[in-house]
Structure formats: structure tokens, C-alpha cells
């Protein structure tokens, strides 16, 4: 009787969000898949069906696409490795009973809430070879031989990766801490009775028990890395984005909306978008499979 009455709510309550989602999210996504099969040179111009030609060109002849793909993968693997290594390390520190845990957690998380454009401005200054803080600091502490152009062509993307990593560590630290905190104390106590020290406790107790959560976090990071646009796009010393800094989303925007020249290759850009979506789906499946484990009930 309760349920019958409540069922009347379903449609009016669900409709607005479902309709918005279908019309302005799902439908454009599907359209994007369709458009990738066309040659489309401008928003007011007609589409010409060309089948898989866009994809063929993309995968065989396009150097910039290869750069964008390499960068996105570099960010995911290298950036991810650093982020998770540091986040694990800090989680084990903060879970070992030291004081000011919440203080550290807050300070380390803070970079995550700064606007990416502001973060870029700050780091551009840090990296500046002539009067930037990084070189200045190195000179002050006597390591002046390391004074260099941190973001020179050839190293722009690693420099960008450092920035993204700095912002992200706190986020994954917070999540790992929450997961580690849920492990009940008796498990640790049993470990302590068996003579484990902090380090062993982390590797042999904490890590296995949060293994499936780690899988979820890796998926979150992968999606985040594949979506990366704002930091790489804004971080450039010449005012327009060099191909060296491309990520897949940046490439979609560059090909689709042009940068300084009004050349719109909208079908081609959509094809890049398709490849991006495909990569996200595949990696999600792979990661989930690697980290799958029956949930330990506790």
C-alpha cells in the first residue's frame, strides 16, 4: 500500500534528470560516434559520410595523435605510479598513530581544490628559469648546478605531469586513508600479537584488505588522466599549445575548434573522441579485472 502510492512519484521525480541526461549527454555522445564517420568541415556545413577514413588517417598518418596518445598514457602510468606510491606511503605514515593526522591530511589535500588555471600560473612561476622559485631555491641551498629550464621544449609534458601529480596526491591519499581506516582494529591487534611491525602491517594486512578499493581508485585515476585538459592546455610558454603538450582531449579541441586558424575538422575530432572513449572503456575493464576479489566481509 505504501509502495503503490509511492510509485506515482517515480515518473515525475525521475523524468527531469533522466530527460536532461538522455537529451544533452547520451544523445550527443552517440552523435559523436556517428559524426566520426563523416567529413565535417564547419558547424554550418553539411556532413559527408566517409566511413572509417577518419580512423584510418588517425591511426596511420597522424603524428600529433600519437603524441597525444603517448602523453595521455604517460600521465596515467608514470603520474599514476608516483601518485599511488606517495599516497600509499603517506597512508601508512598517517595510519601509524602519529599526531596531527587530520592536519596533514588537510594540507596535503588542499592543492586538489585550487583551480587548475591558478595552479598553472603558480607553477609557471616556480619553473621560470630566470627568476623562478625552483631555481632560486636550488641556488640558495647550494645546488645551483641543477638550475635549469624546467619546462623547456622537450620536457614540457613531464613538467606538466609533476603539476598534476602534486594536485592529485592529496585526493588519493584521502581515499586510501578512508579505506584503511575501515579495517577493524582487531585485525591489526592480531597482527601485533604475531609480532608484525608497522611496515609489515601495511604490506601484509592493510594492502590486501583494501585491494578492491585500490582497483576503484585506479579506475578513477585513469578516467581523470584520460580527461586531462586544463593544466596541459594552459601551461605553455608561447601562448598557444605546442603539440608536445597535447593530451587526447586537447587534440579533440584543437582539431574540432581550431586554435588560431579557423580550420574545423569536426568529423576527425569526433573520431579522436571515439578513440578516447574506447580507451577508457577498455582500461576500465582491464583494471577491474586485475583487481577483482571477493569482498571480505567486515
Amino acid at each position, binding site marked *: 500500500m*505504501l509502495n503503490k*502510492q*509511492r*510509485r506515482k*512519484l517515480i515518473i515525475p*521525480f*525521475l523524468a527531469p*534528470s*533522466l530527460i536532461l*541526461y538522455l537529451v*544533452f*549527454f547520451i*544523445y*550527443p*555522445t552517440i*552523435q*559523436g560516434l556517428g559524426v566520426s564517420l563523416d567529413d565535417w568541415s564547419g*558547424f554550418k556545413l553539411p556532413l559527408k559520410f566517409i566511413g572509417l577514413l577518419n580512423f584510418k588517417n588517425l591511426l596511420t598518418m597522424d603524428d600529433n595523435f600519437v603524441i597525444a596518445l603517448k602523453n595521455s598514457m604517460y600521465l596515467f602510468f608514470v603520474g599514476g605510479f608516483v601518485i599511488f606510491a606517495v599516497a600509499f606511503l603517506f597512508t601508512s*605514515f598517517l595510519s*601509524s598513530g602519529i599526531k596531527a593526522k587530520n*592536519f596533514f591530511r588537510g*594540507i*596535503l*589535500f588542499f592543492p586538489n*581544490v585550487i*583551480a*587548475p*588555471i*591558478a595552479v*598553472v*600560473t603558480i607553477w609557471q612561476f*616556480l619553473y621560470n628559469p630566470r*627568476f*623562478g622559485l625552483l631555481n*632560486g631555491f636550488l641556488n640558495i641551498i647550494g645546488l645551483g648546478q641543477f638550475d635549469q629550464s624546467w619546462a623547456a621544449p622537450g620536457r614540457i609534458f613531464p613538467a606538466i605531469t609533476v603539476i598534476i601529480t602534486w594536485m592529485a596526491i592529496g585526493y588519493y591519499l*584521502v*581515499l586510501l586513508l*578512508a579505506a584503511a581506516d575501515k579495517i*577493524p*582494529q582487531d585485525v591489526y591487534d592480531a597482527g*601485533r600479537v604475531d609480532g608484525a611491525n*608497522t611496515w609489515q602491517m601495511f604490506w601484509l594486512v592493510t594492502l590486501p584488505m583494501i585491494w578492491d578499493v585500490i582497483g576503484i*581508485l585506479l579506475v578513477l585515476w585513469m*578516467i581523470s588522466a*584520460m*580527461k586531462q*585538459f*586544463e593544466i596541459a592546455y*594552459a601551461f605553455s610558454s608561447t*601562448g598557444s599549445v605546442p603539440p608536445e603538450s597535447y593530451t*587526447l*582531449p586537447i587534440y*579533440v*579541441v584543437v582539431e*574540432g575548434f581550431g586554435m588560431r586558424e579557423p580550420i574545423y575538422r*569536426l568529423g576527425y575530432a*569526433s573520431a579522436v*573522441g571515439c578513440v*578516447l572513449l574506447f580507451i*577508457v572503456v577498455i582500461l576500465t575493464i582491464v583494471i577491474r579485472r586485475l583487481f577483482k576479489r571477493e569482498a571480505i566481509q567486515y
Partner: protein
Amino acid sequence: MDTNIKESKPRSRVGGQLSRSLPHIPMYVILGLFAVFNIFVIVWVALASFKTNRQLYANVWSLPVSFALTNYIKAWTTVKMSQYFLNSLIVVTLSVILTLVVSAPAAYVLTRIKFRGSNFITQFFIAGMGVPAAVLFIPLFDMLSKIKMVDNLAGLILVYIVLAIPFTTFLLTGFFSSLPVELEESAAIDGASPLAVFIRIMLPLASPGLLTAAILNFVSTWNEYMLALIFITSDKNRTISLGLYALQSSMQYTGDWVGMFAGVVILMIPIVIIFVFLSRRMISGITMGAIK
């Protein structure tokens, strides 16, 4: 819950006993270095925003000579940060509120009423979290330009709402499903209509979750500039992050670092305020979703 270990040692976390605090020193050092770096960077930028460019180039480490607000006034007026700030305030506030208006009822029926397909629809919404915006913004731009919603704030609000739906639904369904069922049943027995039950009982109960979703959406929408870059083309409609981006692109020619820093501070102020007062809620919101 405390376990019943009958030992004379003090109850403490893993390895946290007094005799073991020595190994903690390197931990404090490493954590401390990172923390100091973070604090230092922010404080330095804030201080630098009060300098002139000449003072900055002369000595990057010096304290500002005076705390004159010249850079801020210039950013606010000449550079039109005031306009951008206002735009962001309107766009972000409205999109956050409307996202809740649209998603909370949906999350409620998806979790509290068992109907066929409810699980599928929930997963369907959540799957949207994995779709990069880059995949859909070309057709979306085309669609919106046909209905004249490009380069206006309403169109941007629409985009923000739609893109926030997956995550917000994810968060709210998680939250709603953790609320006790008995209250609804007893209210129904008392003769309240389902709508009244939702408005008078469930919404107030869910307010921590709603607030958390609001805060997280506010911060991410305030900070973003990618979508604004695509959907806003004229200067007067820029949001504040986009404005800072535009400023930065032009800074290549002016070299006005201190002006940029003032812009950075202006941009960060609302977020810092939120963070100082609500960081615990933000953090619990983030973990609530991923760590059930």
C-alpha cells in the same frame, strides 16, 4: 567498536605506542616537508600579489613593501575580474542548486522504491562519470548553437547541470540508500502523502548528503574553465577561471606576474573559505562514494 584486549598497554593505533614513536620522526619530516611546500607556495603567491613587478623581479623572496591593493583594484576593474566573478557566481550557484533539484528526487526514487529497471537506470547514470566531456562536446556545441544557447550563461548552466548529473546521482543514491526505512513507513501510516514524506522527512534527513554534493559541485564548477572555453566566446560572459586563463594567455605579452597573482587570489578566495570551514564535509563526501 573497541575490542576486548585485556592488556595493560594503552589502547592505540597500529604501532603508536610511546616506545615506538622514534621511527615516527622520519615520517613527520617527510610529511612536514610536503606540508611546508604546500603552505609556502600559497603564502608566497598571496604575498607576491602585493608587490609590483619590479619588486618581484628584484628579489623574489622579499616581503612586499606595502600591502597596497593596487594589483587587486587593477584586476577587479581594468581587467574586469569583477564581471567574471559575478558571472561565475551566477552560473555556479544556479547550476549547483538546479543539479540538486533535478538529481535528488531521482536519487530518492531510484533507491527507496523498488521498481523494475531501477538498478539499471542507476548504473546508467553512474556510467556517465566515465565519459570524458571531449567525447560529446562537439555535437553538444552544435545542438546548443542551433537553439542559441551558446555564448550565454544559461547555456553554460545547462551544460554544467547535465555534466554534474552522473556524479551527483552517484553520491546521492549512495547517501539515500543509507537512510533508515522505518521513518517513511511510519509517516505513511500517519497518512502523509508520498510527496509530503519526501519533502518533510527525507529531504531534511538527506541534507548532509545534499550539502556535500553542493559543496563538491560548487568547487569543481567554480574551478573549471574547459567547458567555459568552448561554450563561451565573448568577453563579457566569461567565468572567472576562464577569465584568468584569458589573462594568462595575454600575459605572455605584458609579463604582469603580480597582476596574475592578484587574479589567482581573487579566484581562490571562495574556495579557500569553503575549504577552511567545510573541508571535513568535502572529504567525507569524496570518500563516501568510493569507500562504502
